């Protein structure tokens, strides 16, 4: 349908463009072709593409051209995005997990002290994901609950045992070697 080379090249650029592609950007790629000619090619490309493509379309957005999925597919796309592996942690949860991994058994006041932030929500997330577990109570005032990492934690991070965690010293070594 689009045997000519230029339209396919433009399509490929439209496909990778993260922001709407403007005619002036396109002209920088093809400095020997005038803006008018490029506009003509682009418009005929867009109408051809949109008439035979049912999944994706090219729309004019924010002064440029952008390839997007057709809106009626959005429900399926959302379903797909939700089903992807939930092995993901928020940065806050990751920090809490790091403190627990390196300082276990450790209490909530101690965690908050090290993180310099108050809040308990990330503990619940980590407990739910079975990455941490309770480890009895500390024999100090208030007898706070202590937390430690689980076997699930070790599996999740691809370790054989806790001793395989890199130490802070090793991490600093890696950092200094990269910049050295």
């Amino acid at each position: 349908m689009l045997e000519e080379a230029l339209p396919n090249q433009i399509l490929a650029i439209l496909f990778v463009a993260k922001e709407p592609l403007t005619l002036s950007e396109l002209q920088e790629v093809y400095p020997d072709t005038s803006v008018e000619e490029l506009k003509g090619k682009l418009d005929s490309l867009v109408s051809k593409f949109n008439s035979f493509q049912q999944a994706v379309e090219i729309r004019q957005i924010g002064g440029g051209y952008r390839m997007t999925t057709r809106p009626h597919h959005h429900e399926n796309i959302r379903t797909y995005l939700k089903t992807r592996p939930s092995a993901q942690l928020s940065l806050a949860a990751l920090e809490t997990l790091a403190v627990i991994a390196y300082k276990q058994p450790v209490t909530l006041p101690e965690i908050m002290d090290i993180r310099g932030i108050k809040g308990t929500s990330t503990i619940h997330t980590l407990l739910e994901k079975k990455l941490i577990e309770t480890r009895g109570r500390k024999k100090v005032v208030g007898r706070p609950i202590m937390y430690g990492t689980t076997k699930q934690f070790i599996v999740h991070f691809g370790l054989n045992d806790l001793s395989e965690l890199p130490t802070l010293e090793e991490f600093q070594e890696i950092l200094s070697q990269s910049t050295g």
Partner: protein
Amino acid sequence: MPDLAVPEGEGYTVQLDSFEGPLDLLLHLIRQQEIDIYQIPIAQITDQYLRYLEMMKDLNITIAGDFLVIAATLIHIKSGMLLPAQPGSELNEEVERSRQELVEQLLEHEKFKQAAQMLFERETVELCVWPPDESEFQAEEEELISANVFDLVSAFHRMAERYKDQIVMEMEGETVSLAEKLGEIRRLLKVQKEVLFSFFFQLKISRLHLAVTFMALLELTRLREVRLIQKDLFEDIRILAC
């Protein structure tokens, strides 16, 4: 400057960039002269290699220790090969072994250079074929990252750094008590296994603070909460939690 005509300025340094390590330099010298890697004329290559090092020195380029290690190996082989060949001589065999090891190291290194080149070419193409991102669908969700062990230790490191900053701020105040300083050092040692004594000087704090810091350290040593280690008279004192 030695008898070699060396172009001055950027051109030359750019050339040096491609010799990231001593093996790269050696390979360059060998390839440039289209020499069979198994039949390296050691004497000639050693001279050229050493001349390069001299040029680097003249240009005030710091020569990494790795370059000197290979230089020593080359000189060792070169001088060994000047000895009359005696069948069965231990020295001759040892020199030959060093030569073979060097050749093998060069061959191994060159294979990985090729592999790196292959990865470079693949990456060049692959970086330009990526599909657009799905950000328009993710705006509502919390930013999530899929974490590995490295993320974990980075997160921990970040927190330790954050702590350092807080301490700097606290120290901007005028008064400081021994109890406060004790607390600070204890917290610092909770996130770091070890603190260098010089760390407290880097903060450009007042003499009062330094005096209190010192007293706090003595107190913590007395309480056996920390150990102070100094390897040498002029070495930095390392403060370790017990």
